[in-house]
């Protein structure tokens, strides 16, 4: 813990500086930064599962569950509060995660990935085809919620939402770091290194993985409800397999070895997408694909791997 604290502290300060200073340059960065933080929270969940060596190619289902929980509330009950929405997001992600998790934790590697993909595609087709409830492919618009009971102008809202996202992201980062450092987190890692040995110790690997799975689903749900509030819409696209792929992409880009990788990856991903789509509207996806190939071939430990390497070099030198 003592070793990690400085890195986390530095990251927190850098993040704070970015959140406070960058919006001064351009207002469009407010939404962009909020998205970075919200997606980073989802990717944290992917990183948790990667600790166990498992890749979920269907994690977008929890993201969509969080977003649609917010959208349905807005549609059938009325405009709510963002704090309420976040609870909805966490609960819907968590409940869905528990139900799906009970099935998928029995499988590993490609089977785990496939089953997750299948479940997420089931959710996607339901969202797409249950037109009566979900508006189909058009999605559901999400009205601007109040924040802690107060209403804001659109501009004020975007700023407060950014600060709120930052606070949640920081809390999530800290919680995940604590979890991974706890005995439960160490057992989760043991699933990757030697699952049989873990079971010889009398530990149920399935239960350990289920705990990790539900945590990662809760993070997905929270991220989804945040994105729905930021973009003010929830569409079936949120559950489509390309979205899941995007989350795994961000995790590898940032580096799965450290929870901070989620936010480093999300920042690079969203900024490249934002600027590439502004400059080269037709080619941004190609650019991102190229970045991903370069990362896999040249720096499989991800962006965070660079920091880690320099960290170690500094201490040994």
């Amino acid at each position, binding site marked *: 813990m003592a070793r990690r604290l400085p890195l986390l502290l530095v990251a927190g300060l850098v993040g704070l500086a970015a959140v406070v200073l960058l919006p001064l340059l351009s207002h469009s960065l407010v939404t962009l930064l909020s998205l970075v933080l919200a997606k980073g929270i989802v990717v944290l969940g992917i990183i948790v599962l990667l600790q166990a060596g498992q890749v979920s190619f269907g994690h977008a289902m929890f993201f969509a569950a969080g977003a649609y929980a917010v959208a349905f509330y807005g549609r059938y009950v009325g405009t709510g509060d963002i704090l309420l929405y976040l609870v909805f997001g966490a609960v819907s992600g968590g409940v869905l995660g528990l139900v799906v998790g009970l099935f998928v934790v029995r499988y590993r590697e490609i089977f785990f*990935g496939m089953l997750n993909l299948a479940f997420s*595609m*089931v959710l996607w*087709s339901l969202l797409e085809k249950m037109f009566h409830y979900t508006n189909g492919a058009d999605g559901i618009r999400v009205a601007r919620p109040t924040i802690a009971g107060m209403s804001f102008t659109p501009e004020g809202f975007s700023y407060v939402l950014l600060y709120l996202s930052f606070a949640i992201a920081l809390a999530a980062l800290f919680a995940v770091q604590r979890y991974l450092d706890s005995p439960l987190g160490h057992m989760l890692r043991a699933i990757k290194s030697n699952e049989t040995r873990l079971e010889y110790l009398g530990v149920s690997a399935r239960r350990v993985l289920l705990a990790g799975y539900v945590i990662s689903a809760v993070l997905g749900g929270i991220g989804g409800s945040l994105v729905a509030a930021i973009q003010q819409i929830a569409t079936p696209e949120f559950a489509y*397999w390309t979205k899941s792929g995007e989350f795994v*992409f961000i995790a590898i880009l940032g580096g799965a070895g450290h929870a901070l990788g989620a936010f480093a990856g999300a920042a690079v991903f969203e900024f490249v997408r934002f600027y590439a789509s502004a400059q080269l509207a037709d080619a941004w996806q*190609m650019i991102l694909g190229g970045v991903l190939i370069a990362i896999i071939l040249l720096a499989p430990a991800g962006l965070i791997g660079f920091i880690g390497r320099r960290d170690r070099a500094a201490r040994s030198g």
Partner: protein
Amino acid sequence: MNLSIAVLAALDGVSYAALVFLVSVGLSLIFGVMRIVNVAHGSLYAYGAYAAATIGIAVAPISPWLTYPGLLLAAIGIGVVIGGLLERFLLRLVYGKDEALQLLITFAVFMILDNLQRLIWGVQPIFAAVPLQLLPNITVLGVGYTSYQTLLLPGVAILTLVGLRYFLRHTLSGAVILAVTEDREAATAVGIDPQRVFLTTFILGAILSALGGALASPTTSLLPGIGTDMIVLSFAVAATAGLGQIEGAAVAAVMIGLARAFAIYTYPEFEVLMPYLIMVLVLLLRPQGLFGAARVRRI
């Protein structure tokens, strides 16, 4: 549901199953030999379809019958060029790396190919139905249907299945592929070059996917996103059958094709849901797929 609708649904299902089979058997073959799930497999389907349409539009004024060799040419051209380049210059660099990284590099390829496809062929729908219209319609139990879809597509699928079986079981190149699949180390020890086997397999799988696309091009309008949908669908078929199962993929394709077609005529909301629902149910009961052999857990 009366008889003519049932027949219509069955014909829809079979012609659709034939296309899905071609794509998923390619995916399955590649996984069986190389242990890589190729996310870009759907892009090869889309490129096959677009290339076939482009060739078709170019040669149709000369003679509409030239569109048939055009379909085959598109499939082989796309499979050899894109498949060959991918394996030789990209996948070869990641063998032995983490499974997640291998999967993700094909995802990156998918992103690039998907983008490139929109740049080359645009986003407007393209129609190239000449091959479909050349063949006469036939009547099955009182229901009129194109013979392209009722006879040609299933015929090509069956031919592919028989051909693949023969190739793998009765030819030297096929035996070499099976040897590498069973035990790469032992195969290398007797002088087999696994790299060449990988290249052959990947190109073969890519051709099959592009062939599925080329044959599908006359039956539908070509839009961005056809490859994106096809990859999950072919994946559902391959996983339902058991990854690496060739005959199983045929059975699963027919199963999923029929389920989807009957859903269209009874509960259209469930059309898209059917394949994934079947996949979930099968994987929950038999994670190795309907025809896959259970893997013994290694200690």
